[in-house]
């Protein structure tokens, strides 16, 4: 039983990571109708920023994390303003191809800059080791992820539900034309949403690397999982993305532990099955 709880904890922590990395993608895809396959590249950037600042310049972990979010947001903004913006509402296939091109470029650039060898990743001493919680214990870092991620998620959900910015985003996801006619500057809304999504991706990347490692193929490795999470959850639905992330994280870890030879089948099989029944995802709305 304690074993099971342990694995469950690991799964939830993994799900939180997936959510942080995918949350922004869900908003971009739902809000702007933009299939940004290069989202994982922003997470990779966040990861390398953390590694660089900590290993080379001796920054503390949390400061490096903040910089990872900031750096990814800036990078995301630059790309959004210069390139992606031209393809909003365009052909989905063009977006997919363009962003695949961006992924390929970032993988190559990361290899060039940081090398193909995975760097060493450190976290503060108090996050290493394990903590006892009643009848089971859990890795401190995982517990930290669950708590930190939970707070962040709460903030996001409240932000989307309660603030006027969140209301505008929900309005734009539901009906873009009507939102424009209400006099909302949708271009600026997109820009902000994209920046926030990028910051989350960078933060998620910075947090993920201690558990999942970092190397230049990071964006490709997580591309599939991010897409699964976003599409199964339903484009533009934060709650859906959260549910799908947790489900995928838990299934993945449980599967790897109990039925290693079937793990991948179950995830892809369930994804295909869900999309067959609900093409718009679990929490998505019909268009």
């Amino acid at each position, binding site marked *: 039983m304690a074993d099971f709880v342990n694995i469950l904890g690991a799964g939830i922590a993994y799900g939180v990571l997936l959510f942080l990395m995918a949350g922004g993608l869900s908003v971009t895809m739902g809000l702007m109708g933009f299939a940004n396959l290069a989202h994982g590249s922003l997470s990779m950037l966040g990861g390398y920023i953390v590694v660089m600042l900590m290993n080379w310049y001796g920054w503390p972990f949390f400061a490096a994390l903040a910089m990872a979010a900031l750096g990814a947001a800036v990078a995301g903004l630059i790309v959004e303003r210069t390139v992606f913006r031209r393809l909003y509402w365009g052909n989905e296939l063009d977006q997919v*191809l363009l962003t695949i091109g*961006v992924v390929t470029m*970032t993988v190559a*650039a990361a290899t*060039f800059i940081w090398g193909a060898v995975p760097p060493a990743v450190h976290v503060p001493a108090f996050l290493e080791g394990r903590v006892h919680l009643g009848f089971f214990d859990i890795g401190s870092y995982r517990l930290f992820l669950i708590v930190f991620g939970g707070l962040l998620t709460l903030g996001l959900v409240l932000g989307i539900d309660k603030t006027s910015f969140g209301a505008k985003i929900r309005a734009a996801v539901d009906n873009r034309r009507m939102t424009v006619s209400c006099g909302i500057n949708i271009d600026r809304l997109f820009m902000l949403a994209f920046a926030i999504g990028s910051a989350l991706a960078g933060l998620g990347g910075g947090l993920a690397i201690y558990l999942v490692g970092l190397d*230049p193929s990071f964006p490709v490795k997580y591309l599939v999982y991010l897409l699964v999470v976003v599409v199964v959850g339903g484009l533009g639905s934060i709650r859906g993305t959260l549910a799908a992330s947790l489900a995928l994280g838990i299934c993945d870890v449980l599967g790897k532990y109990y039925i290693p030879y079937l793990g991948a089948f179950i995830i892809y099989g369930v994804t295909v099955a869900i999309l067959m029944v609900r093409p718009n995802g679990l929490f998505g709305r019909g268009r």
Partner: protein
Amino acid sequence: MVAIPAQPATPPALASARRLFVRRAAWRWEEIAFWVLAAASYFLFSDHLVLITQAMITGLFVVSLDLMFGYAGIPSFGHAAFFGIGAYTAGILARDGWGDPLTGLVAAALIAGVAGAICSQLVARLHGIAVLMVTLGIGLICYEIANKWNSLTGGDDGLQGMQVQPVLGIFAFDIDGKVGFIYSFIVIFLLYLLARRLVNSPFGLALEGIRENIRRVPAIGIGVRVQLAMAFTISAAMAGVAGALLAETTQFIALEVLGFDRSISVQIALVLGGIGSLIGGMIGAIVYTVARDQLSLINPAYWDFWVGLILCIIVMSGTGGVVGILRRSVGWVVTRVRR
């Protein structure tokens, strides 16, 4: 296959329809140039026949995707599944005693086609990103099956021990790849003719109609689902033949034939060559394969960077890939000369 409405067309309309089909079906200069060059490469680059054969096989694979993506407008992140199914079909047959290459191709086409027909039913109701995700999922599932089913596929180590017999019982595959080249060339050329015939038929026109406006097509009496299922099946069967050709000419199958990377690179090669022109697929595959082979000798990472940049530029500028650029530049020269 024929999607022309049943009621008799008025004679002038019929005549103009005929003219349209004749014009569509006319051989373009870049097609002729490509095939002449491809045939000539047997003599010109006789030291590199193995590489050229592989590039042409990739070309067939890209053309099969072009049928589906370029003409019917169905994107796929899992097209390697059909390539791999074809490769493993021919490979397993050859390993287990059925080494005749031509019937191996037929078997590969059949099994990949059946797989394609099943998948077409899965994606029929979907559109946009959901199609991408389901095809991606199918591709990954196929990869996992081949990876885990060691006894059948050899798993991670690849399929070894193929005994491919001589083509028609006469021409044995040689180490220089001469027979492999000629054999592949003929098969690929014939399938190219078939693909050409298809896209220049009413069926091809119906596919383009579906791509351009899926809601209006039923209004002129075309059943969207049937047409798409057929396009998917034919495309999968062609991809299967391409996979089988690769297996037979290299006499080895790596698990990578089913990989996600292959599904992506075939998309890239198609865009590079030019979508929706068939010959663009062949040209894109050659450019992609040869350039990758040469540049990855220097450093694979650089190659990836440049190919990504080129992909972005092609998408952003809408030039239509190599074929688009060729056509436009030749058109420019021709108008200058005529003046």
